[in-house]
């Protein structure tokens, strides 16, 4: 009760102060190229507010306990993990601040991000850019890899730092389904043969959107003709086919396609309770975590498609108006370290694929990484990578999402 009173008092008396005012390193330009020791010195004793999707207890635990622990013990920085339901909320905060002229006292120090949200940040001048070379662990990143140097076709250009790689994969329940469809073509047949057993989250849900892109690639007869800048004529041609396919499919979907799940989490629930018989995710390791925490039946098995699945990289970004840029840079550097990337790759922690080149890390880290045994129900990253498809440029993606809402969703 004493604690309660204290908190209540705190809440009411110190309420004027914005939560956590600390050593101000809003001037990012001054940090670029500085010796790393000076940056860690500036960051010392401060805090960093990291906004990221908060709906997964194991990711929360990794971030708060493992990463937060390193920051506290080695750098004396307090990490505030701010949980979001949707990344766009954080982008929106920065956007609102810029509009209101808050240029050096923003409330967001770092966001877990990629794709359209990154495009918004970069094009809107909302990102702190050009500092990545200053991070010592930047050396572990292979910027020559176009899948790292471009985030959904948008050149990264030093505006964000890679965190993990992911590749889309399906999952089915071996107890319920014998032969799941192994390509988009097979899937379309399978849905018609098994009415009511499939659906996909409505775009702009991240995973629903990438599913529609797989159909789009299928309709185009392959991704090759879609790479490069947005091409209206090509889009019109392929999208007409795509909407025809999806509308044709609609009567065979869950609830006859009259409604779509609003999120991938909602669809996972449908899958877990046998309302539908397939699910998918951009993060294939989620199958293992979901089996272990009881969200999925233990007989769930992940798998890739023979005609390939789309892969991407996700990143962390520092907003232009973050007052704690030094601390955010230290955090990014920690995230890039071999130790942090290794920990994240452990199947019982998260199981996600490192965004750095593991052969550039220390021998110990490499040995531990090589010794990782993937969760038996998760499709191994190496196997998925054999049939990897690239992401389209962000302009294509927004056009597809918009088109889906107008032609299929309504």
């Amino acid at each position, binding site marked *: 009760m004493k*604690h*309660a009173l204290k*908190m*209540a*008092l*705190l*809440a*009411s008396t*110190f*309420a*004027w*102060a*914005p*939560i956590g005012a600390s050593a101000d390193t809003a001037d990012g330009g001054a940090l670029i190229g500085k010796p790393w020791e000076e940056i860690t010195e500036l960051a010392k004793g401060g805090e960093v*507010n990291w*906004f990221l*999707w*908060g*709906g*997964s*207890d194991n990711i*929360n*635990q990794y971030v*708060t*306990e493992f990463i937060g622990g390193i920051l506290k013990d080695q750098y004396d920085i307090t990490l*505030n*993990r*701010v*949980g*979001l*339901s949707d990344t766009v*909320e*954080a982008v929106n*905060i920065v956007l*609102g*601040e810029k*509009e*209101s*002229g*808050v240029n050096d*006292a923003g*409330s967001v120090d770092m966001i877990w991000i990629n794709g359209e949200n990154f495009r918004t940040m970069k094009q809107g001048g909302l990102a702190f850019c050009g500092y990545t070379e200053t991070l010592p662990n930047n050396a572990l990143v292979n910027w020559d890899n176009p899948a790292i140097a471009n985030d959904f076709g948008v050149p990264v250009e030093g505006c964000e730092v890679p965190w993990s790689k992911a590749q889309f994969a399906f999952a089915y329940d071996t107890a319920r389904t014998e032969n799941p469809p192994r390509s988009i073509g097979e899937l379309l047949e399978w849905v018609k043969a098994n009415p009511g057993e499939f659906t996909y989250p409505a775009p702009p849900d991240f995973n629903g959107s990438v599913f529609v892109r797989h159909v789009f690639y299928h309709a185009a007869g392959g991704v090759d003709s879609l790479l490069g800048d947005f091409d209206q004529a090509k889009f019109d041609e392929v999208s007409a086919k795509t909407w025809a396919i999806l509308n044709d499919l609609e009567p065979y979907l869950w609830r006859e396609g009259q409604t779509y799940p609003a*999120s991938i*989490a*909602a669809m*996972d*629930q449908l899958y*877990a*309770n*046998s*309302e539908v018989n397939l699910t998918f995710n951009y993060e294939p390791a989620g199958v293992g975590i979901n089996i272990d*925490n*009881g*969200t*999925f*039946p*233990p007989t769930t098995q992940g798998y890739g498609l023979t005609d390939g699945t789309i892969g991407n990289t996700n990143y962390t970004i520092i907003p232009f108006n973050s007052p704690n840029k030094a601390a955010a840079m230290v955090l990014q550097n920690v995230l890039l370290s071999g130790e942090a990337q290794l920990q994240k790759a452990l199947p019982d922690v998260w199981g996600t694929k490192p965004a750095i080149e593991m052969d550039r890390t220390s021998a110990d880290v490499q040995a531990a990484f090589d010794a990782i045994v993937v969760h038996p129900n998760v499709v191994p990253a190496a196997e998925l990578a054999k049939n990897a498809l690239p992401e389209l440029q962000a302009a294509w993606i927004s056009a597809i999402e918009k088109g889906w809402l107008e032609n299929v969703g309504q």
Partner: protein
Amino acid sequence: MHQEPVLTRSFRVLTGIVLITWLILPLIPLAIWSFAKGWFFPDILPKTWSLRAWEYAFSDTSGVIDSLWLTIGISLAATVLSILVGVPAGRALGMYKFRGKEAVELMILAPTIVPGIAVVLGIHSVFISMGLNNTVFGVILVHLIPTLPYMVLVMAGIFANYDPAFEAQARSLGASAFKTFWYVTLPAIMPGIIVGGLFAFLVSWSQYILTLLIGGGRVVTLPLLLFNFATSGRNDITGAIGMIYILPGIIILILTAKHLSGRSGAVGGFGQI
């Protein structure tokens, strides 16, 4: 009272039972989920039980306990402010007739008629330029919009039945203004303060969208945490946080329940619109 026929009485008891079941029904799966590990259709009860969700909820990582205290602090602050501001206003509206009274009443009631989402978007942009967004104080302020009308309504109802003659007597016997208020006015209006305060607390306690927008994700009250997990499909953790979230309300109700029923007339203030 004449004796009721058996049929009528059993009908009453039956409807009573249906009502009881209906009232607690939605809380049951929530409570079960908090102890479940994997609970799939068509299992009536989970096959495996686990304390994992509760362990997570009480861990430092989840922030649930910090958030619980913060939510209590915000709701208490909003309640106290509503009382301080609402009691005088209720007195003015309950005891006096004056020009423009109807307009004042309408303005004070407006927030109960116009949904919060309609105002909070505008407030949000003002708060950003004032630096009040993302602060606990900003959240408390914005919670006053829905809580204050309840407080004023209840107090207006109380003061409408209040006899100021006692105050005059106390003053004429030499009591100071403060003593008069403390020993005469306050005891008389206490039931209203308790009921109005209870409503104000509960209204603030359940705010989601106002806190989300004004708090900018930085002021993490329990409903925000709950929403995170509810929309990510972790039903076990959702269940545990949900149980923690309803507990303080129940405790406060137990402390104030006798004022809600009974003849105090405090709740009757709602008949004033």
